[in-house]
């Protein structure tokens, strides 16, 4: 029991880390696409760095907002399920009487 739990925890941790890594890769890709468009020089210039900074900030805010909405939705879904379950329990006892 203990062993399968800790494997489960490891699997979950792995999935979360993988998700995070893939998000970062996507972030780099999005910001590169938006900000880096000229290749006359080898190094990133100030404009490109500034654009990247703003792009990263916006992406983080975007991700956070999505997480907030998901959290809200899951809370409201749970509340709906509880209400439904309570209704069914009431009906069950009402029928018995």
């Amino acid at each position, binding site marked *: 029991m203990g062993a399968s739990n800790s494997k489960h925890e490891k699997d979950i941790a792995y999935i979360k*880390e993988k998700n995070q*890594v*893939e998000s*970062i*890769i996507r*972030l*780099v*890709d999005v*910001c*590169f*696409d938006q*900000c*880096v*468009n000229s*290749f*006359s*020089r*080898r*190094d*990133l210039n100030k404009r*490109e*760095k500034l654009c*990247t*900074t703003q792009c*990263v*900030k916006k992406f*983080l805010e975007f991700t956070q907002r999505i997480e907030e909405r998901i959290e809200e939705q899951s809370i409201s879904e749970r509340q709906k399920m509880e209400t439904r379950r309570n209704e069914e329990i009431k009906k069950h006892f009402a029928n018995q009487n």
Partner: protein
Amino acid sequence: MNSITQQTTDKQEQKKLVKFFNLQFRKMMEQCHKKCITTKNKGKLGIAEKACTDRCVIKYIQTTAYVNELLNSFSQEVDQTLQTQQSQQK
């Protein structure tokens, strides 16, 4: 126990790195192809395309490093804010 566990962890870390680089490589290829390979008909890379491709790879890697720097500094800011809040509460 330690050396075997360490070997397993090292192998896992290696796998993670390889997956990461593979994914990044594909994305980099897509971007640089999109931005640098402009002519379709000739069978070879033009001079401009070669230079663009070289610089694109360099810039992509620099962007990755820069984004990681930013993420580190943002998370440090969050940690510092949390620490300040915690010490204020005490």
